[in-house]
C-alpha cells in the first residue's frame, strides 16, 4: 500500500487538554444547513417552523451564497399559534397542504424545528407522522431540529441526515455508503476513484432523490465525508452499519488516508490503489505546493464554526507549512475527528465552544497571519489589520479530494496574497 501519512513524532493532539470557555458564541444555528442541503436534494422542500428571525437568517445567510430557486421557506408563527398548540398543528397542516398542492415536484418534505417551535414544544415528529400518512405515497415527511438552542451551524445537516436513516429500507447487501452532502462534481470524483479500485456498490447519503434505492443494514460500511456528522454516525451504527474511521479527505494526505481506509476494508490490491491514486495525487501535490509558497511559515487561528477546523488545521500545518496558534471547533467528537487529531502536531491551543470576546482578545494578542472566522467577525478583524478567511465558504465550495486540494489551499492563500498586493496606505 502507498505510504501512509506519518504521525508527528512528538505526538498528536488527541490527548491535548481542551480549552472550554462558556460565553457568547458567535455562530449560525443549524437552519443554515438548509441553504446547501436543498440544492443537493432536488425533490426535497425544507419547511422551517419558526419566527421572522429564522426566515431572516435563512435569507441573510443565503444572500452571501450562490443558488437559484429555493426549495425552502418558513412557516412564521404568529400570536394566534402561540396561544394554543392544537391550533398550531392545524395551521401547519394547512400550510403544508397548500405547499404540496402548489409544488407537486416535492417528494420529501422536511419539517425543520426552530428555537420558537421547540420552546413552545410543538411536536413536529407527530406532525410528520400524520402528514406522511396523509400524503403517502407521493410525499415522505420527516422532521429534524435546526434550532439554535440545539444545533450549531453544520449540525443542521447532521440532524437532517440522521432523520433520514431510520426510514431507510433494510438491506443486507454488502455496500459502501458515502455520507455527507457534497457538490456533485466532488462526489463523482470520489466515486470514480473508488470504482476504479473495484469497490462497489457505492451509495450516497443524502441521495439526490427520494426514489433512489438507498437501503442500509449490517452489510453496509460507511465513510463520512464531513466531520460534523456525529448523530448520523450514531443513527447508522444503530442500523447495523459499520463506520470506517479515517482522516477527512482534505488535501493529499487526508484524501489518501480516507481512500486507504476504504481500500483496506475492501481488500484492494496495493498496486491497484497506487495505480489509481498516483496521478491525481501528484496533481494535488503540485497544486498545493503553489499555494503553499504563500502559506509556508505563516500562522493561522481558527474560530469555531463548521467543525471542519481540525481537519483543515491538519492540512494547513502538514501540507502547507503553516503554524496553528489556536484551533477551535464548536464540538469535538473524538470518535470521528480522532485520526485528524492524531496527525495534528502538538502545539496549538485546542478549544471547544467559545466566549467570543475572550477569544477575540487572544486572537488580537497573537496577531495571526490568517484568521479563519465567521462573517460577523471578518471585517472587524480586517480593520484591525488581520487577514481573514470566511469559514462559511469552506462549507459550500468544492474543497474535498485530490482535484480540489489546490483550490482548498488557494482559499487560504488568497487573502494573504491580496494583503500583499494592495498598496493603499499613505507612504
Amino acid at each position, binding site marked *: 500500500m502507498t505510504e501512509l501519512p506519518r504521525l508527528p513524532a512528538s505526538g498528536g493532539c488527541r490527548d491535548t487538554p481542551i480549552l472550554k470557555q462558556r460565553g457568547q458564541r458567535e455562530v449560525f444555528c443549524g437552519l443554515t444547513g438548509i441553504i446547501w442541503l436543498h440544492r443537493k436534494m432536488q425533490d426535497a422542500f425544507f419547511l422551517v417552523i419558526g*419566527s421572522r*428571525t429564522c426566515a431572516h437568517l435563512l435569507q441573510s445567510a*443565503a444572500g452571501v451564497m450562490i443558488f437559484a*430557486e429555493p426549495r425552502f421557506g418558513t412557516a412564521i408563527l*404568529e400570536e394566534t399559534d402561540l396561544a394554543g398548540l392544537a391550533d398550531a398543528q392545524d395551521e401547519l397542516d394547512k400550510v403544508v397542504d397548500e405547499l404540496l398542492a402548489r409544488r407537486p415536484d416535492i417528494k420529501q418534505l422536511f419539517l425543520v424545528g426552530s428555537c420558537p417551535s421547540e420552546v413552545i414544544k410543538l411536536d413536529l415528529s407527530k406532525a410528520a407522522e400524520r402528514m406522511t400518512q396523509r400524503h403517502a405515497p407521493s410525499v415522505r415527511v420527516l422532521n429534524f431540529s435546526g434550532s439554535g438552542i440545539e444545533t450549531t451551524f453544520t449540525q443542521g445537516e447532521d440532524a437532517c441526515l440522521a432523520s433520514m436513516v431510520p426510514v431507510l429500507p433494510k438491506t443486507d447487501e454488502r455496500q459502501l455508503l458515502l455520507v455527507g452532502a457534497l457538490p456533485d462534481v466532488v462526489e463523482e470524483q470520489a466515486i470514480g476513484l473508488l470504482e476504479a479500485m473495484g469497490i462497489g456498490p457505492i451509495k450516497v447519503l443524502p441521495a439526490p432523490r427520494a426514489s433512489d434505492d438507498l437501503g442500509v443494514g449490517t452489510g453496509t460500511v460507511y465513510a463520512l465525508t464531513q466531520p460534523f456528522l456525529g448523530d448520523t454516525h450514531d443513527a447508522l451504527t444503530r442500523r447495523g452499519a459499520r463506520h470506517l474511521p479515517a482522516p477527512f479527505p482534505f488535501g493529499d494526505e487526508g484524501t489518501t488516508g480516507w481512500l486507504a481506509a476504504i481500500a483496506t476494508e475492501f481488500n484492494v490490491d496495493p498496486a491497484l490503489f497506487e495505480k489509481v491514486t498516483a496521478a491525481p495525487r501528484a496533481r494535488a501535490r503540485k497544486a498545493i505546493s503553489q499555494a503553499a509558497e504563500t502559506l509556508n511559515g505563516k500562522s493561522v487561528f481558527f474560530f469555531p464554526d463548521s467543525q471542519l477546523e481540525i481537519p483543515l488545521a491538519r492540512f494547513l500545518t502538514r501540507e502547507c507549512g503553516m503554524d496553528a496558534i489556536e484551533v477551535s471547533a464548536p464540538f469535538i467528537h473524538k470518535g470521528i475527528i480522532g485520526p485528524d487529531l492524531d496527525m495534528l502536531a502538538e502545539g496549538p491551543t485546542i478549544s471547544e465552544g467559545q466566549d467570543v470576546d475572550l477569544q477575540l482578545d487572544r486572537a488580537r494578542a497573537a496577531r495571526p497571519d490568517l484568521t479563519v472566522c465567521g462573517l460577523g467577525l471578518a471585517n472587524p478583524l480586517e480593520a484591525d489589520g488581520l487577514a481573514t478567511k470566511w469559514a462559511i465558504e469552506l462549507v459550500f465550495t468544492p474543497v474535498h479530494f485530490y482535484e480540489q486540494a489546490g483550490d482548498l489551499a488557494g482559499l487560504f492563500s488568497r487573502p494573504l496574497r491580496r494583503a500583499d498586493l494592495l498598496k493603499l496606505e499613505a507612504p
Partner: protein
Amino acid sequence: MKLTVWTYEGPPHVGAMRVATGMTGLHYVLHAPQGDTYADLLFTMIERRNHRPPVTYTTFQARDLGADTANLFKTAAQDAYDRFKPEAIIVGASCTAELIQDDPGGMAETMGLPVPVIPLELPSYQRKENFGADETFFQIVKALARPMERTKQITANLIGPTALGFRHRDDIQEVTALLSDMGISVNVVAPMTSSPSDIARMGAAHFNVLMYPETAETAARWMERELDQPYTRVVPIGVGATRDFIAEVAKITGVVPYMDESRLRLPWYSKSVDSTYLTGKRVFVFGDGTHVLAAARVARDEMGFEVVGMGCYNREMARPVRAMAKDFGLTATITDDYLEVERTIEALQPEMILGTQMERHIGKRLGIPCAVISAPVHVQDFPARYSPQMGIEGANVLFDTWVHPLVMGLEEHLLHMFRDDFEFHDAAGASHHGGHTKPAPQEVADAGGPAPQTPGSISEEKKNTSFGVIWLDDAERELKKIPFFVRGKARRNTETFATERGVAEISVDTLYEAKAHYAR
C-alpha cells in the same frame, strides 16, 4: 402561521440593532439563542462596518432552559458593561427569549448598573424591523432627552438615520447642506452618529427634521409634545419635495426660504430632448412607504413616467400610500408577501420597476429593468461614492439611477430600425450593460449581501396568456421581432385589445390593429 420565502423586513430586534449600531457609547444586551448572532453580518458584510455591532447576545441553549437563563442574562449584562463601559444600555429579548419570559428589562434594572438601562418591549410575533427601530429610538429619546434652553442660533436635529439604512449616510450630508444654505445648523443627528449624551441635548434644537418616518416618527411626535419641537412632514426626495421641504422649514423657523440650485441638474436633464423617450414609460413603484411616496411623485412629475402601480411592504405607511395611489387613479398594493408583488408585476407588465432588491430579482426573472429606491438593502446599496437620495444631489442621483437601466434615447430608435439585425435582435440588451437584461432564470447568482434570489417556480404555472387568449404562431414570431423593452407592453396591449373585442386568437393582424389602436 404564514409561509414566507423572502421577507422585506427582519424581526423587531434587528431594528433595535440598527439603532444601536448607528450610535456610539450605547450597548445592546439581547437575550437570544446563538443563531441570532447572524444579524452581525448584516452590518459587517452588507454595510462593511469595521466594528462588530455593539450587541451582546446571551446565546442560551436548550440545556439552560428552565435552569438558568435568567442568570445567564445577568452575567452577560454585567460582562458587557465591564468590557464596553457604555454610557447607556438597552436590553431586550429576541423572538425565542420572548417566549421564555425572563423579563430582561426587569432583571437589568435590579442589577444596579451605574448607567441608564433602557428596557425594550418589541413584540416579535406581531411587529417587524421598522417598528423595532422606531420604538427603540423612541425609548432612548424618552429616557434621555429633556427640555432645555434652545441654542442661540436656529438649529435642527436630523432624526431617523440608522445603521443599514438606504443611503442614510449620504442623505445626512445633503440635508445638512440644505439647512446650512438657509443659515440653520444641525444640533444632533440621531440615532446614527449620536451617543447617549448627544440624545440628552436634543432638546436644545428649535425643531426636528424627520428624515425617515419609518424609524423616527414616534420619537418626533414625543419631542413635539414634550420638548415643544415642531417637526417637518416633507421628506426632501426629488426636486418638488425638496422645494416643499425648504418652504416648510422656512415656515417653521421664520427664515427666508433659499435653495442653491446651481448644482441641480434633474430639471434640465429631464427637459432635454434625449429624455423624450422617457415619456409615458410605465413604471411600478414598490418599497418602504417613504421612498415609494417620494418616488411616485418624482416618476410622474419630474421624469414624465406613467405610474401603473404602487405599494409598500410596511403596513405602518399603508394609509398615505393608499391615498397617493388613489390620487394617481390606482389601487395600492400593500403587502409583505413577495409572491403577491411578483404576481402584481407580472400582471401589470411595466416597462420598469422602481423597487427594492427583491423587485430587482423579480425584474431579472421577468426581463424588466429595475432601479432600487428603498431598503431592504444589499451590499450594492452602499456605494463607495457619494450617492444620496435627498436634496439637490439626491435628485441628480435619482435621474441617473433611474435612467441607467433603460435603453438610451437614440439607441431605442436604432433598435427599432435594425430590429432584424442579429446584434440588436431579440434579447439584445442595452449596449451599456454588457449583457442581456434577461438572464436564464436558473443562472441568477449574487454574492455579497442578503439579496433574495430568484424564487422561480414557487408561483403557479403560467397560463397561456393572462387573459386566456391564444397567440397564433406567426403573431408570436412577429411579437419576438419587437425589441424586448417594448415587447411586454405590446403583448399586454394586444391581449387587452383582443379580449375587449372578444377575439380568441391573436394573429399578426390583431397585433397591428392593436398597435394602431394604442398609437399615441
